[in-house]
């Protein structure tokens, strides 16, 4: 296992993610398809990691496991010292609510809520008062350049705008960890770059850790570290299997 090192090279930073012998496989008829095979890895707080790999290589599966919306077949996952795999379903949900932010390829905004309400949702779930959550949502919308669209419904926005709202929603409650699954996969190159810029800027402002799944090397370049998913293993771009 690699020793976690803070990216500025100073004293070791606290661990944000620890994967301990994590395995996951799916059954396809008679065949067992091993997606993750006893992987071990660690990410320190504030770091950014890109999961690079082709479709079906296990990037999304790993994100799902880290977020607790799926469970590994074996092994353990720790987030900021909390052993996620030891928690029951409800506790995992509440942990996710407080500490995680998601950005999806297909935005997944709630169509029945306005743009501002979508951003307020995680705040409200975390018990932030309405006035404060409203103020915060407007600040974030301002930060992603969409202050004028606060009362619009998502279907009125372009793809890039929707993804910027999704980023604002993911960071609204200042989560310790942001998981992004192909955040530019559904956008044109120029819009994708804009969205990545927004994401990077906001991560720096919030100091959150991020794990980003992508098949694009260009997108992966925004991360400090790059892991490749291949044949059930994680390989750091330096060439060492994790």
């Amino acid at each position, binding site marked *: 296992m690699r020793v976690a090192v803070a990216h500025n090279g100073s004293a070791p930073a606290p661990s944000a993610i620890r994967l301990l012998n994590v395995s996951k496989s799916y059954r396809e008829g008679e065949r067992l398809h091993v997606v993750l095979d006893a992987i071990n890895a660690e990410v320190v707080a504030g770091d950014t990691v890109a999961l690079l790999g082709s479709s079906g290589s296990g990037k999304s599966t790993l994100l*799902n496991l880290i*977020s607790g*919306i*799926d*469970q590994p077949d074996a092994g353990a996952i720790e987030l900021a010292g909390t052993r996620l795999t030891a928690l029951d*379903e*409800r506790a995992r*949900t*509440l942990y*996710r*609510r*407080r500490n*995680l932010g*998601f950005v*999806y390829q297909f935005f*997944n905004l*709630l*169509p*029945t*809520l306005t743009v501002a*309400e979508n951003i*307020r*949702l*995680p705040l*409200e*779930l975390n018990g932030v008062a309405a006035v404060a959550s409203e103020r915060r949502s407007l600040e974030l919308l301002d930060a992603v350049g969409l202050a004028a669209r606060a009362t619009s419904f998502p*279907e009125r926005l372009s793809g890039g705008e929707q993804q910027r709202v999704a980023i604002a929603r993911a960071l609204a409650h200042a989560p310790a960890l942001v998981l992004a699954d192909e955040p530019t996969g559904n956008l044109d190159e120029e819009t994708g770059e804009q969205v990545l810029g927004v994401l990077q800027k906001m991560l720096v402002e919030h100091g959150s850790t991020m794990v980003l799944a992508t098949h694009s090397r260009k997108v992966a370049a925004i991360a400090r570290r790059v892991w490749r998913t291949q044949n059930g293993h994680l390989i750091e771009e330096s060439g060492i299997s994790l």
Partner: protein
Amino acid sequence: MNLLAKTSLRYLPRHPWQLAVALLGIALGVAVIVAVDLANSSAQRAFLGAVDAVYGEASHQVVGGPAGIPESDYVRLRLDGGVRASAPVVEGFVSIGERAFNLLGVDPFAEAGFRTYQIGSGGQGRAWLDLVSRPGAFVLDERAAAALGLDVGDSTEVIVAGKKRPGFLAATLAAEGGRPGLSDVVISDISSAQEWLGWNGRLSRIDLRIEDDAGVARIAEGLPEGSQLLSAAGRSRQTLGMTRSFSTSLTAMSLLAVLVGVFLIYNSVSFTVIQRRPLLGVMRSLGVTRAEIAGLVLAEALVLGMVGVVAGLGLGYLLSRELLGLVTQSINDHYYYVGAASVQLAPWSVVKGIVAGVGASLLAAALPAWEATQAPPRQTLARASLEQRVSEKLGLIEICAIAAIAGGILALVVTDRSLVVGFAGMFLIVVGLALLVPGFVALLSRRLAGPIGRLAGLSTRMAIQGIGRSLSRTGVAVTALAVAVAATIGVDVMVGSFRGSVDAWLQRSLNADMYVAPPRLAGGRAEREIDPLLLRRIVALPEVDHVGYSRSVDVVTSEGVRRLLAVDMTDEYRANTRLTRGDAAAAWAGFDDGSAVLISEPLAFLHNLDAGDEILLPTARGVRGFRIAGVYEDFDTGSGTVMLNRDLYRQWWQDDSVTAIAVYLEDPAEAQAFEAAVDALSAGRQSLLVTSNRDILKMSLDIFDRTFTITNVLYLLTVAVAFVGMVGAFSALQMERIRELGTLRALGFTPWQVGGLVNVQTLGLGLLSGLAALPLGVVMAWILLHVINRRAFGWQIDMSVSPSALLGALALAVAAATLAGIYPSWRMARTAPASAMREE
């Protein structure tokens, strides 16, 4: 309002089809329950009011046989027995103008403490004096008097069993503040009532107020032979009990409509949940817990339920006003004259509606809510996983179906009397069969897709295959609609079979050429008799070949009212009376020699009596047991009929009167001449109804149809619910596919081709619903006929399934499906593929 709640609140108006179907399902279900309940309770209240008005505050009653009680018994009871709290009563039915009334002949001086009367303006002071001093004087409710155009002091004709008697309106009863139920009562002095009814020196009953058990025992011991002491409360209960089967069967019909409503609600709610699975998945990944998701779905159902209930209550009230007229008409036709009743808003009926509407909505939402929370969030995001889960669960669903059917059959087999268990069994079987429908849909679409595809091309194959591959949506919709269509088959076959059985029975029973009787209003009242002198003259008419005499009277037993039908059996009547139990030869021999009686099928079933048993009947010489020789086919609606030899009746009831005669003419072509001759003989003496067998058949079937009008109203409502539900559900299914259809347009499908695809699929869904409904409907009809009607009324009805009922149901399903495809096809034709693909 929190944001989670907002997501629901805004979701439903964006899907108006689902919202409309769900609300309609709830509103119509609640409306039917509330309407039937309000109509039943209002009619029963009117019925009880009418009974209470004539029973008053009596604690007990002394009653006699059909010939009543000698007046001397009352004198003996009051003077010798010292029972001061007693009041003599003569009861009957009269008509004034076109309106019927209950006649209450009383002794005004003995009435204090039994009944209170509030005399209206224009008769005070003199009213009671006129009542006792002027023959034919009577008192009437002031609204009834106004409706008849009578003022106090006016003379009029009072018609009793077809005979006109002079009457005089001595006073009117105040409409306001008076006792309810008196609006349909004519009150006269006892002597006038005796004169009108031809009951000189006789009483119908003696009302008593007895404070203690010892008094009851003492009075009972001292009663002369042929009289019995009954509790007034018990008699009210018995009287009310006569209509219980009728109201129960209406409740059953309303429950059927609710069952259909529940399926529609379930369909709508589960559809809205399934459709939002990806959204629910997003919420779960944002940290919304399972309990919060379940709460959200249930809260949504609660709101839907409440809105539906409000609409349903209003609709139910309006509907109840229409139904009440039908219910009171049926009570008048079959049981007792209650006049016109008005709908009274009973809080309990409203509570039932609320509980049913909200409860059904929550129940319908519970399963989808549970399902939505069980799948891991990762899976809720994937549609394919849902379809896979549904396919995997088919086996489990089928096991549940078989268990439900087995439970239902068991419930029906182990009990043979309980109506409640009968209902429970029926619902279990229906639900069980309904659960088999998704498997049937999957199987059929799998099997048919290939052959149809080869014949009609790839797009048709896609449409048929799509039905089975989207089982999460289509399965529930087809099941819900199959139940709705099945309910229409069930009711249609039930009413059709019943009408067929009654028709066949009447054709057999009505074997004489003509029937002569006083007007029917008085039912089993003793005063309904043909004037003896007139009778002799009619029988002697040259057109008459031979005659069958019958006497029909009601007797009061401790277990309820029994109709006695004393007949001089003609060969024709005997040949057409079908014995369902007992050895026919022995039964007829016992009947002829007067050693036994026959009882009607309902009486036998409802009171668990059979050939060889004994039945206790109050005779003029006290209560006596009569041996039952056999059970005969009958469709009476009261608590049962005892048929006996007229000699036996004369012997024990000392009554030689004749209620009706069945006339066999020398030449059936002389019917008109006979009718004219009877009219000439009876003119000025007694009004008699002379009817041909064909007319009676028609009148009886009219009454049947009137009784079933309410069933037909409920049936049409069920059809309407099914139809609208089907159109809504199928349209919603297609609207949900608009993105997929947009993709097909982008691939090069023309609007026509996409429209064709939509229509083939909705048509397929309609056909599958219709096909699945056929066996389900026939089973439902069988249970309604052989379990529900049998247990409620004791009727034995032969089931006949007319092809028109089945074809009608299929046509309903196909027509709804055709309509359902129109809007999505039109919408697709007008929407650019790019925007269709952007649809949520």
